[in-house]
């Protein structure tokens, strides 16, 4: 992997709400993403995993320029992504694309597949008619769909096929980075594998870089080179996928891995443990996982643990004062 990261997120922050009302009372604010620092290198897949409300989708939208951070920087290929998205989203969209969670909702029900796939070719690449035709065939082939499907409407497709069209659209502009936001969670299990295999194949073929967002640990484990675990808007642990999954250091990562159902495994979790997230309007001063954490001390409640290098492996970092031991 080259030294300069393709994408680097520095202390990114996204606050929803906030500000003041007409009469000067402060409005409630929620920190959806807070102090997130991550790097993505060319050719790798960064998995982002976390439960609902952890800010992973907000992070994804900020990377493609659909949402702007309220603080921090996002740098893509040496350029300030936030500033660029603000004045010319098209330039960014040629290089950074997005695959949506709900494949059917991401296709306009009143447009044919051809119209949908042509849009990026016209607006982003300004291709002529003949070039477009050639590219459309290429794209359909890349996602393993017959070219005659181009004239059909989205409702005629199953979820898996629709998601492949979504992937084809993201590929159309020949981007460098694709953000995949829960690309398989709306699909039936037998179809998930089809889509995951196609993604794998495309990455190798076109030298793509992925940011893969999911709540499903086993899916993230199977696709990612590196993994970031998010909780309550922050990254709590990041590192090589294998290391994080084999030797989780943060107690939350530990809990996640212990909770995930797997064939042949009985659950080991106590049924009365606290599962409540902190109140987002009134976050605790220290670690957000404090109330649920079996290893917590007073220090955890008073201070925010920083995301620091931990253990022997390079780049393995966790935000915890009392991490689990490495092996």
């Amino acid at each position, binding site marked *: 992997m080259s030294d300069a990261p393709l994408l680097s997120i520095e202390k990114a922050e996204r606050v929803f709400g906030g500000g003041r009302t007409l009469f000067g009372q402060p409005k409630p604010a929620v920190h959806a993403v807070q102090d997130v620092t991550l790097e993505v290198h060319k050719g790798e897949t960064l998995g982002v995993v976390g*439960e*609902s409300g952890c800010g992973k989708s907000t992070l994804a*939208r900020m990377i493609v320029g*659909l949402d702007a951070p309220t603080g921090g920087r996002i740098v893509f290929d040496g350029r300030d992504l936030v500033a660029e998205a603000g004045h010319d*989203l*098209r330039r960014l*969209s040629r290089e950074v*694309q*997005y695959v*949506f969670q*709900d494949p059917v*909702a*991401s296709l*306009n029900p009143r*447009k044919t597949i051809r119209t949908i796939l042509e*849009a*990026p070719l*016209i607006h982003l690449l300004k291709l002529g008619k003949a070039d477009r035709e050639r590219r459309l065939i290429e794209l359909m082939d890349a996602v*393993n*769909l*017959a070219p*005659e499907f181009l004239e059909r409407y989205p409702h*005629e497709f*199953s979820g898996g*096929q629709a998601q492949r069209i*979504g992937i084809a*659209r*993201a590929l*159309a502009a020949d981007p460098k980075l694709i953000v995949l936001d829960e690309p398989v969670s709306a699909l*039936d*299990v*037998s*179809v*998930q*594998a*089809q889509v*995951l295999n196609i993604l794998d194949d495309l990455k190798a073929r076109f030298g793509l870089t992925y940011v893969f967002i999911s*709540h499903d*640990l*086993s*899916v993230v*484990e*199977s696709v990612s080179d590196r993994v970031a675990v998010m909780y309550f808007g922050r990254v709590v642990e990041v590192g090589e996928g294998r290391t994080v*999954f084999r030797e989780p250091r943060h107690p939350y990562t530990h809990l*996640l*891995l212990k*909770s*995930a*159902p*797997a*064939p*042949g*495994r009985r*659950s080991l*979790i106590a*049924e*009365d*443990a606290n*599962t*409540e997230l902190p109140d987002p309007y009134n976050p605790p001063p220290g670690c957000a996982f404090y109330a649920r954490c079996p290893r917590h001390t007073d220090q955890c409640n008073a201070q925010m643990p920083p995301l620091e290098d931990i253990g022997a492996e390079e780049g393995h970092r966790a935000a915890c004062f009392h991490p689990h031991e490495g092996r």
Partner: protein
Amino acid sequence: MAEATSTAIKPVKRASSGRPNTLALLLNNTLATAGLVVFGLIVLIALAAPLLPLPDPDVTAPANRLFRPLTEGHLLGTDALGRDILSRLIWGTRVSLLVGISATLIAAFFGSLIGLVAGYAGGRVDTLLMRGIDMVMAFPYILLALAIVAVLGPGLLNALYAIAVVNIPFFARNIRGIALGLSRREFVDAARLSGKSNAQILFIEVLPNVLPVIIITMSTTIGWMILETAGLSFLGLGAQPPQADLGSMLGDGRKILFTAPHVSIIPGLMIFALVMSINLLGDGVRDVLDPRLKSGALTRPVARTAVTRENAPQDMTPVAGAILDVRGLKTEFRFGGQVYKAVGGVDMAVRRGECLGIVGESGSGKSVSAMSIMGLVPTPPGSITGGVALLKGEDLFAASDERIRQLRGSAVSHVFQDPLSTLHPLFTVGDQLVEAIQAHDPVSKTQAREKAIDLLTMVRIPNPAERLKSYPHELSGGMRQRVCIAMALAHDAQIIIADEPTTALDVTVQAQVLSLMNTLRKEHDAGILFITHDFGVVSAICDRVAVMYAGQFVETGTTEEILSAPAHPYTAKLIDCVPVLGQPDRRLDAIEGRPPVVNNLPVGCAFAARCPRAQEDCRAAPIPLTEFGEGRTVRCIHPLTGETTDV
């Protein structure tokens, strides 16, 4: 692959070619057709008015005043100034139609534009535009029109403006709601990332999806606008003499109501016929264009699934030790002439304290099988067409409605998927628990409350007495599902039917809820029928598993056996196509193609089209479920393990 998919897609394709047949759909509706015919006739006559041999509508003839209808030369009589009523009626209809349609178009154009922009832009623009619209709507409808006419002065054109202006808010509000929803949809973000500008997204992506709503709103308001302009004319504020529309004719006639009622009754009848025909037609148009009505989403389901089995099975002796014993269960859905065999003959038995898992993909019929047992499949369109469900030997499909009600929530209870939508949003958790308790136990409210607190304690909810006062939306997903489980345990349930109870929950919450259910079933010695799509979840809680495909069980056995040595190729594929935690290098074995649609099942094995082991004989005849070792069955003639694999 492409072949399998394109064959699967064909029926859909054929159905979709019926899309331009909106008119045919409309004509299916007798009332709408009647409306169309009457409206068409009125429009035709009004258009032809200059060609018809009619006397001049405005020529007065004092000598001929107030002729009754059917007078010679004056089919509908004459009015107070001796003018021919038939002629005035036709010319007046022309004016009323023109004004009504123009007002509708003006209101639709400006209203939709405001609504689209407000809904799409959101934020300040939305707030500003909608506050303005709210201001206009803060006036009682007709009053604002009156105020506008008062200032502009009476006259037909002014009345038209007034009616159009006061109707703009209706369009703006309706369209804004739809546009707002659409603008948050993912395809709008997708279009933005495809490089489209805001104007392109608004008019090329959003507008086509809003158009049906604009048409529905137009077709339902046009009748109303004709009524309102007629009303203004009736009050003398619209059409001014000598010009007449239907309203002003009615207004003129009112003064001589007692002496010559026909002068006012006839134009009123005409307004009524016109508006009624438009409304009938408008309702028809709405029914055709509104997807909710098309999909039958507005049919009321009855309290219990209809049972239409021809004859109950003879053998009614339950399997030894089983509390619930289902045999040959068949459940069908009927949509538009098509029969969907959602469940095509399912046998299952659940013993006390045992957890049976049914695993399958969406559309496999696993939920329908489970919901059929206590008659919770919506009818219409569902009905149970065969089989028997025995609860401790009692045939549930033959039981009375009252008996089923007594059993629901007591001997057999349910836990559903999404705990937010399954709890009533307007009642507190306490009210809903108390109701569940009192449904089968004639205790006082205080006693029921105490029991409710006990139940919440049992499912490990902290501060149970406080939580009773909470509404469902105030609790987290995990807490809500605990409440649902508490409700299922309100009485001594022998069987709990759990339909994907943890699918909507986060992993850590899911793990806890599963542990809780596992502990409770042991404490209460209750059997669980557990529906899921996830083999990991199955491992966590189920003793035995049934794998379902296209409405039938393809394999049953203990969880360990099926996971370690699946016999049916589908089971094996289903296990292999999911990534497993801790095995990141496992190759994912995708199942190509899609499951068959249950209204068009093949004769032989339903999985044959996607099965790598399929042979000629698989497609020839139905495959029976055969014994495959101790307590294990498989529906395959070329299974993966055992003696029969030597093919």
